Each structure stands twice: as C-alpha cells, then as structure tokens.
C-alpha cells in the first residue's frame, strides 16, 4: 500500500480522442495542501473527477492507497468535496444534510456546527430548497458537509469564491484545524486566490503539469492587525471596510480591524479600489485591543 495520501502515476484521459490529461504524475504526502491552478481547459476539473473516481482513465490514481473507482464507497467516505458550482438540488437543506450524513456515517450536528461557524444557521433553513439558497449559503453548506468529521482528503474547487470576508476568515480557521490530519487539493484558475492557503503549487496547462513548486505560506489561522487612514470620509469606502469587520475612528477617516493572513491579497485588491483616498496603511502583528485603540 502506498504511503502517500494521493498517488497519481501516468494518468491520461481523453474525450472522443482529444487528450485532456497526458501522463500526469503527482504524489501528495498526508497533510500536504496543494493549489491546483491553470487556465480554463487546463484539465483541473478532469483531474478532480479522476480523483473522485468519476471518470474512467488510464494510469494509476490512488487515494489513501486505494482506487477511488474500485473502492469508491470506502474511499469517498474519507473524501470531502466542494464543487465549483453548487448543484441545483431541489431537496430541502434538512434532507441534504440527512442524506449526506447518513451516507458518510457522519454526525449531522457536527456539520451544522461548522455551518454555523461559517455564518449559516441551519434550523431556519431546514425546509428551504437547497437551490433557493444564495450562492454564499450554498457554498457554506457544501463546505460544512465536506469538512465533516472523518474526512482525511479535501478536494475543493474555488471554495472561497462566493464567501464574504467573515466567512472566508472562518473557512481559513476550519482548514487550519484540519491541516494536521487532512490532505487538501484546492483548485482555482487564479493562483492569488489560493496561494495563501497552500504550501505547494501545481500548475496544469493543456493536460500537463507545467509547474510544481513549494511556496512559503503563513499559518492558515494567522490574523494581521490593520489600520487604514483615509484622506476624507467616503461612504463606499466606509461600507467596504465595515464589510471586512473594520471599525471607524476619528470621523470615519481612520479604520482599525484585522485581516485573515491568507486573505491579505484579496484585502489589498479591495483597498486598491479606493487607492486615491488611502493616506496610510499599517498591516502586521497580531490584533490586540491596545493596537485597535491606537
């Protein structure tokens, strides 16, 4: 039995004679977090579907030493999956939770607890059709199901794409809690979306691995104290900063708060929209009440 959590060797997949993956080889030790990046059509979704045992393919694909195609129920019980687009399920949230938790043998209370941490209270939504939830609510529920207890491999396709800053921050915390025992594959077409979450980047292009590099990354649950000073009060900038959990000081010209470490690039992206207003930025150190008062 292989010791790697995920072992891929000579993986090839074609659709109607057109190769989409060509002789891929990849080994992920247990507990490693990788970003799977590449442009549209690079083969990321196909690779994920091969990992989930959903596609027939040539070569070796093993998760925890077993084929996800042949031993699907055993392996998929230990795999959490978040798709890029939530499926249009008509079933109510409560039924989806029951269905998933019974199949996975997981405690639905633990899933509900994670959903609540992400800001999704399940009880009032139990009877609402999954398809009628907002994009962010769907994403939170799917993440909570994927992070159920017993998951040892997490495969996530742009998991943070529909989340607000507060929920993203909790997602990073949840991933940090699982980082000791879970191997993670996080897919995105943009490296900057996921770079801060991982320690290794694998880039695909036209079905081949064109880059496989270890990268420096901070702790997933790191938070950085932040102070923003604006040249004048501006409603749109204030609303954007409040949405990131900042508090206003000095006539809404100074804002203090904290930013999740893995989210700092996204935060700067938001801040860039108000570059003409920004007079000063301080970022770094752990957030403390003293810093926030200062």
């Amino acid at each position: 039995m292989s010791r790697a959590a995920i072992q891929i060797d000579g993986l090839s997949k074609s659709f109607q004679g057109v190769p989409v993956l060509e002789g891929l080889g990849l080994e992920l030790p247990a507990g490693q977090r990788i970003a799977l990046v590449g442009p549209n059509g690079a083969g990321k979704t196909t690779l994920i579907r091969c990992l989930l045992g959903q596609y027939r393919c040539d070569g070796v694909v093993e998760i925890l030493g077993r084929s996800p195609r042949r031993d699907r129920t055993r392996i998929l019980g230990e795999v959490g999956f978040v798709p890029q687009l939530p499926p249009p399920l008509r079933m109510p949230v409560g039924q989806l939770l029951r269905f998933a938790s019974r199949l996975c043998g997981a405690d639905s209370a633990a899933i509900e607890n994670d959903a609540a941490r992400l800001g999704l209270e399940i009880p009032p939504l139990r009877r609402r059709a999954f398809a009628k939830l907002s994009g962010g609510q769907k994403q939170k529920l799917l993440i909570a199901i994927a992070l159920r207890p017993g998951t040892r491999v997490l495969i996530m396709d742009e998991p943070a794409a529909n989340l607000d800053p507060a929920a993203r921050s909790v997602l990073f915390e949840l991933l940090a809690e699982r980082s000791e025992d879970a191997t993670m594959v996080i897919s995105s077409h943009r490296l900057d979306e996921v770079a801060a979450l991982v320690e290794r980047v694998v880039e695909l292009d036209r079905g081949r691995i064109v880059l496989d590099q270890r990268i420096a990354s901070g702790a997933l649950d790191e938070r950085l104290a932040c102070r923003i000073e604006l040249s004048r009060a501006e409603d749109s900038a204030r609303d954007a900063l409040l949405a990131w959990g900042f508090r206003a000081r000095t006539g809404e010209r100074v804002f203090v708060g904290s930013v999740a470490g893995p989210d700092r690039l996204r935060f700067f992206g938001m801040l860039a929209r108000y570059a003409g207003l920004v007079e000063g930025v301080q970022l770094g150190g752990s957030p403390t009440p003293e810093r926030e008062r200062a």
Partner: protein
Amino acid sequence: MSEEALVAEPEEASSRRRTGSSVARRRSSLLRDLVQVATLDLSESIRAHWFAVYAVVFGGVIVLLFSFGLTESRILGFLGLSRLLVTYIQLCMAILPVFVLITTVRSVAGDREAGVFEYLLALPVSLAGWFWGRLLGRFAVVFLPAFLAMAAASGWATFQQIEVPWATFGIYTAMLAALCWCFLGIGMLISSLARSVDLAQGAAFVVWLFLVLFLDLILLGVMVQEQLPAETVVAIALVNPLQVFRTAALSLFDPELVLLGPSAFVILDAFGRKAYLIFAVAWPVALGSLCATLGFAVFRRSDLP
C-alpha cells in the same frame, strides 16, 4: 485429527466469519444506499413540475371519464366500470410510455448535465445503490398516480353501487406496473447511453414512435396486407410491449372484437387468454429489467458525470 488441523480449523472458521461479515456489511450498505437514493428520487420527483402535470393528467382522465357518463353507457359490449376501465387503460397506453420515457431521460440526463451527479456521486454511495435506487424511486412516482386514479375510480364506483370488475382491476394493476417498469428500464438505458438531455430526449421520442408505429392497427396491419410472413408479423407484435399491453387489455373484454387487429387475433388464438395475460405481464417486466441491467452496466463502466 492432526495437531496442524486442530490449529488451522479456528483460523479457517475466523476467515469464513470475516468473509461472511464483509458480505453482510456490503449487503446492508447496498440496502442503505438503495433506500436513501430511492427516497431522495421520490421526494425530488414529487417536487418537480412534471410530476404535478403527470398526476393531474391521470386524475383528470378519470374525472373526465366519469363526467362523460362512461359508467352508464353500453358501447361494443362494455358497460358499467368495465367501460370506464377499458377506456382508461387505452389512454394509459397512449400517455404513460411517452411520459415515463421523456421525464426519465430528462431528469437523469438533466441531473448529469447540471452537475447533480458530480456532487452526489462524490458522496460514498455505491453505483448499484445509486442506479437501482433511482429506478425504484421513479417506479413509485410513475406507477402510483396511474394506479391511484384507477383505484379511486373503483372506490367511487363501489360507493355509487356500480359493479366493479375486481379481477380485471387486479390484472390491469399488474399490467400497468409492468408497463411502467418496462419503459423506466428503457428510459434508464437511454439515459446511460446519451450524454446530453437533447440527445436523450430525441432518442426516447424515436423509441416511443417506433413502438407506436409497430402497433396492430398501423404498420402491422400494412405488413399483413403486404403479405409478409405471418410469423414475422406475430413476432413483432409479441416483442413490442405496447402491442402486448394493448392486446392483453382488450382481450379481457372480448377477444372477437375487430378492434383487436389481425396479429393480436392470431396470437390470442395460439396462446389462449390466460397464458397470454401471464406473458403480457412477464415480457414487459423482463424487457424493462434487461434494459435497466444493460443501462447499469453502461453506467458503471462509463464516465459518471
């Protein structure tokens, strides 16, 4: 007994126990998956618009037949509830197969296209549990409205003190179930083979049209007129589940009827009524099961989403 054998015996027994418990675990897991998926499909279907239309159609047909006074008329030898039931069963033959085929392929292929398979099949559900569970869930969904409409008509007739032909009712129930199973099996096979909703829907319609064309009063009649070998015409009539259903339904009332058509007349003459009724239930069930099994084999061996 040697000492080695004495030592080996408990190991063999323990290995047998392990194998036995592993098989039992797999069976119980398959059963759990079947129940979960069938329940899921049932509740998803009940929420779908097509199901509302489907249920209203069958309920509406019965209400219309009652309101047109079919229980009081005597036409071509049928009277009372028999007249209503024979009309209902003829309408079922027209409506049910195309409804079952189209809704099954739309739902299954549609779910695949929309990404439902990608997500739900990433959960630890066995492929057998998934496929057969969906088939069982859909069977309940398509059979129950047609059956309940007929049962409601019989209940109402009893209340109105109109004689109910219960033997016919029982045979029609078995035939309706067989017809639903048959077209569900065909629908699941088409859904496994076709990779898109459009293709699946087109294929389902062509299959239905093909079967309708080879009914006794359409192409089969022409083939008899053109003096094709009788064996060929009879064989086609026996293979076509729609023709089998139609012949059996009409034979319950009057096998001498001109409505029966040439091949049906020959078949009934050869089989006898009782044997043919058994065949009329067994053949569609066998055909549906064969198609579903083929569909499952294709599904299991192909790309899932």
